[in-house]
């Protein structure tokens, strides 16, 4: 998971930061664990998590589009 995040965001999280985020997201019922795969512990989005992520990404998308429009104007 750390590798995936580093590839996507260009930032490498510390193990404490990663599990701080996992614990918070699970507490808020935005993710849930799947059965462990050897040494990997996968998680997936819940329906509430999917809704929240979609809303956050839509906000970011709108923010990025507005920023680009300003730059190009």
């Amino acid at each position, binding site marked *: 998971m*750390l590798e995936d995040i580093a590839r996507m965001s260009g930032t490498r*999280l*510390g*193990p*404490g*930061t*990663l*599990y*701080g985020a*996992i*614990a918070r997201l699970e*507490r*808020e*019922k935005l993710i*849930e664990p799947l059965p*462990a795969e050897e*040494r990997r*512990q996968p998680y997936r989005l*819940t*329906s*509430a998590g999917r809704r929240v992520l979609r809303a956050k990404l839509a906000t970011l998308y709108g923010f990025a589009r507005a920023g680009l429009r300003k730059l190009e104007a």
Partner: protein
Amino acid sequence: MNARLVRQLTRLYPPEWRARYGDEFQELLEIHSSARRAVLSVVGWAIYERALWLSGLSMDSRQKSLAFTLYASLAVLAAGMNFYWTVEDTPLAAAMRAHSTLSATWNLVRLGALLALIALTLVAVPLFLTIMRTAAARPKWNVILRLAVPPCAVLIVLIWLVGATKLSGAHWVPTPWDVAGDWTAPAAWPSLPTRVVLSCVTFLLLIIGLVVSAISVRQVIAQSDLSGIKGVWFVAPSLLFATSVVVMSIGVSAWGWFVQQYAAYDFHTRNGGLFTSTNFTSWAASCLVYLLATATAVQSARSALHGTGSSADD
């Protein structure tokens, strides 16, 4: 990281966090290089999780609702005991028999207490079954031992009351409501200093019992997975419980107002108040605790409603 460092770093986290994430977190740390940045990240987040654990913020909405219900019910128990013993066996009890309005407000408190008992039973049965099922599936002696704390606290107080009564001549029960006042103590009772010391011990045992019970049951709630219980088992009892505490608070407040009208003299004498205070002061203390319990019970209902609204599986 080496296994010893991994174990030490994981131990920094609170027990509930370790029970949930400990194994997978250790797996992750074992394959991680022991760079100073990684260790600092673990230590920093362990402090954060400890702070959350202590504040109760790490609980989900259902757990918070139950914890608030627990605090409110213990507060109601303390306030109710004080209110009952302030009135019991005093001229105020006679005033209640003479004035139906006064006895109606007393009955309102009793009705509230009955509703609270029904609400607590409704929430306790599925909760207790879930906790015991979890404890049986994965033997958790710490859960069973923590659940044993409240009955043990009651037992200790009872043993103390019986033992102290017998030791002091079997004529006086060492309750903090029967120490001294505007009356003459019977000759068979122990001396005033002895009564003060013994009743202080009873009071301390009651307070310690309530606090320790609250802490131990709260820890059990925080460790319990309540997702298998339907939302209605949290919402309906918490709403009923909040209503019952409001009814009790109204009853106690109205009782004070009416007793001031009908038996003002007895209300302001010292014949049943906590630690030789006047009955009015003792009643005011009960009122204050009932109001705090009302705010906590309302918070419990809000958490239960929030839990139903945000839960993915409801």
